[in-house]
């Protein structure tokens, strides 16, 4: 069931630049288990959209099937949503994106949804650089079907029922880097300070922005032996850098010591500021990202933060050379060549 949240608004609630309160970005009350990482990510999405002053109806939220894929009901109730079938959200998002280039597309998926049944679609959405933010709420298990190991579960991970996963895990971040993804980040549902600016940066990126967010499943995969548990992730968390996102036309107020910070300017003038940089790592250098990721893996760390961004990224519409006007607004006059042209075509078949 969907429960509608009572909307009590205090007149003095803080509002963003377009006059919306944070509550305007919320959704129905979550029916996920108390403490589920997914809910924290929903809260991060609400916060990011509020801070970015996004008009909710200019964003479309899409998901597959799973506990994670249910979350779009729990944020942005003024946005259109699409709960597709299991693992197939990327193709729906691709079609939606082609139909209207002016909306922001936010896809939410799970590790089962993306790394198993939907792996093909996930990979090809990256390859096409579909203009969208793609958040994987990664808990190393199938929450909704009661805790089976997923393809992102680490080798040796034990499920709550005691079975040990014998297979190596698929690292979606490593895979995305390998595939040529133009924006790759990882975060942790428990680290809102990092997650919110990452989502904001992802939303400003022209192209496919992957955020692999470790999101513990408190019911089926939060035992200490699990590498996707709160305790394990907290103990092994390592970040490439801390991140600030400065939207277009906002003044950059903090400055950091040279050599320890970097800033990446996005096409729309927004700036991603990174500081306390990990050594030998440059966010715009894919090789250094891959190396950094491997190093962390060897050390058993969970590397988070922005890993790679291509500031020159060209999204699907650039690659497809579609007109500026959204395809879904074209009318008969734009689309139909008319009877006279058809007669010429007929003649070519005589």
């Amino acid at each position: 069931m969907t429960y509608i949240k009572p909307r009590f608004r205090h007149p003095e609630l803080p509002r963003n630049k377009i006059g919306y309160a944070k509550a305007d970005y919320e959704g129905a009350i979550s029916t996920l288990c108390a403490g589920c990482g997914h809910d924290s990510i929903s809260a991060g999405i609400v916060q990011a959209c509020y801070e970015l002053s996004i008009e909710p109806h200019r964003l479309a939220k899409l998901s597959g099937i799973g506990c994670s894929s249910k979350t779009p009901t729990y944020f942005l109730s003024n946005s259109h949503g699409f709960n597709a079938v299991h693992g197939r959200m990327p193709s729906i998002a691709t079609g939606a994106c082609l139909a209207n280039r002016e909306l922001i597309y936010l896809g939410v998926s799970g590790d089962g949804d993306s790394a198993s049944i939907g792996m093909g679609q996930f990979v090809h959405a990256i390859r096409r650089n579909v203009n969208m933010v793609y958040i994987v709420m990664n808990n190393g298990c199938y929450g909704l079907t009661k805790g089976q190991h997923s393809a992102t579960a680490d080798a040796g991970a034990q499920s709550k029922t005691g079975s040990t996963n014998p297979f190596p895990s698929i690292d979606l971040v490593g895979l995305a880097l390998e595939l040529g993804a133009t924006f790759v980040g990882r975060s942790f549902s428990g680290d809102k300070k990092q997650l919110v600016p990452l989502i904001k940066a992802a939303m400003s990126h022209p192209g496919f922005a992957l955020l692999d967010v470790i999101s513990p499943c408190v019911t089926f995969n939060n035992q200490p032996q699990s590498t996707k548990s709160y305790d394990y992730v907290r103990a092994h968390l390592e970040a490439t850098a801390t991140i600030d996102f400065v939207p277009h036309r906002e003044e950059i107020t903090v400055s950091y010591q040279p050599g320890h910070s970097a800033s990446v300017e996005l096409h729309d003038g927004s700036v991603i500021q990174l500081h306390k940089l990990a050594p030998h790592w440059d966010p715009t250098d894919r090789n250094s990202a891959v190396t950094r990721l491997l190093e962390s893996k060897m050390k058993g760390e969970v590397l988070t933060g922005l890993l790679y961004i291509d500031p020159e990224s060209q999204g699907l519409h650039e690659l497809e050379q579609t007109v500026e006007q959204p395809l879904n607004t074209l009318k008969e006059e734009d689309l139909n060549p008319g009877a006279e042209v058809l007669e010429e075509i007929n003649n070519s078949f005589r």
Partner: protein
Amino acid sequence: MEQLNAVNDFVVRFANVNGTGSASANNMFAKAIFRMGIPVTPKNIFPSNIQGLPTWYEVRISEKGYLGRREGVDLMVCINPQSMAEDVASVKPGGYFLYDSTKKLHPQFIREDIHYIGLPMTDMVMHHYSEPRQRQLFKNVVYVGALSALLDIEFGVLESIIRDQFKKKEKLIAPNIKALELGLHYIQEHYEYPLGIRLERRDKVNDSILIDGNTACALGAIYGGATVAAWYPITPSTSVVSAFGKYVSRLRIDPESGRRKFAIVQAEDELAAMGVVIGATWNGARAFTATSGPGVSLMSEFLGLAYFAEIPAVLINVQRGGPSTGMPTRTQQPDILSSAYASHGDTKHILLFPSTPAECFEMTATALDLADRLQTPVIVMSDLDLGMNEHLSPPLKWDDGRRYDRGKVLSAEELEKLEKFGRYLDVDGDGICFRTIPGTHPTKGSFFTRGTSKDEYARYTENGEAYVRNMDRLARKWETAKLKVPPPELYQNENRHRYGMIFFGTTTYAALEAMDLLREKGIELDAMRLASFPFSETVRQFIEQHEKVFVIEQNRDAQMRSLLINELEIAPRQLISVLNYDGKPIPADTIEQQIARTFNSETTKDDVHKAQVPAS
């Protein structure tokens, strides 16, 4: 020896090797006859292979305008030694066999009852052309030149076709005409010509065009306003999207920016292709995909989603021989049930059955309207024969006054006036609800599209009553669909006979010819051509007004018969199957024989509902 004699009524078959460029020479042959005003039906019979295997091209010439396939070959043009034994055997007694006489014909290929015409094609091209590729290509043109003498094809017509074909490569015109002349002169010098079978100019094609169904579907999608095409390559549907691509890159480029008013996605598989279509239509664009049986199987889950979440989608199903990979380059109508009921749960889909390229065009454009109007998938049921072969067809027609029917979509202004929007609220009783497109209004009209059960306000619910209300409304929408889909075609003003026949799609050509053949035998029937599913009242009435009805189709399991029985609660014994499923288009004689045989036994015994004569 007996000799076949006929004017404008015979079958010529070409035996070629695929990948040798014979297709364009063969097309030139068919087009020349068409331009002489004589009805003609060419068919490609080809393997699932790129180079080196036998392919045939069969051309039926029929002054009476019969466009179905006919059994028996009057003239065999044999370019492929690989299939020679089979090719010699297929010629009717008294028929003709044109072969490459560069090498002497092996005695095993000599029949006493057919006429041999030797043309030393290899020798001729070796002598006149130096490049190997040219030799191969012009060999094909040489035999067309020979046929122009043998069959009385007007040479000027052949020349005009070459000139049109090479308008942009003028250098090629002269050598092609030279190759034609080589063949022509050889026959003129060595044989008596024309043969007993020959052509005479007529005025029987009027304003018709010679076009394949896939190109017509593609043009229908363009005229119907599709902006997104998503697909995964599969024979025989591939050329729908390639033709779409060819025409949009001419007709849909913004002149100022040079940018595209369309997007074509070659998806990673058919699941994704259908997903892209659904995503685009959900977001307010018109979109389509084209596939064949294996693709429909993969698309099933998404088709169910589109049905239940009520999202428009157009799918062009160019059917081929199944099951599984089946006979990928042979024709059948084997996906009727799998398309009508694609996906689990109580799901059904609208099907349209074009039978000519003109209808491929019209029905694809109509499918885009119907999908929007009824907010559901619409499947255009073409087949390999219709899609990949050229057919004599009425010209494609578009009325410039025609507007797209985008169905019930609320604008920002309408939403503004609305107190409460319910996505699945049936406000006017036709089962179709108003939808909204993402991004329309800041605070009104947003909802969650889902494949799970929901209430009238698109809220997830497992409440049994809400679920039943929704399912019943979908059934009501299905009733509305019956009034919106194209009606069946009746071939008589009023039913007069005890027996009727039902056919659809490419079966139509042969069925109409069979009706004439049966009439000559004193067997008269009423006839109806199905154009769509769900079946309208007219279909029920036609069946009810006849004692028995023959259902003619191209699959083993009599799928259309099953669909009629299932949907209209017809007594099974009332419907008698006439079937052909060997992968070749159904010929008129097969239909005529099966009906005549049943008809005759019918007069002696009553129980004939199982009388199914195997295909000839």
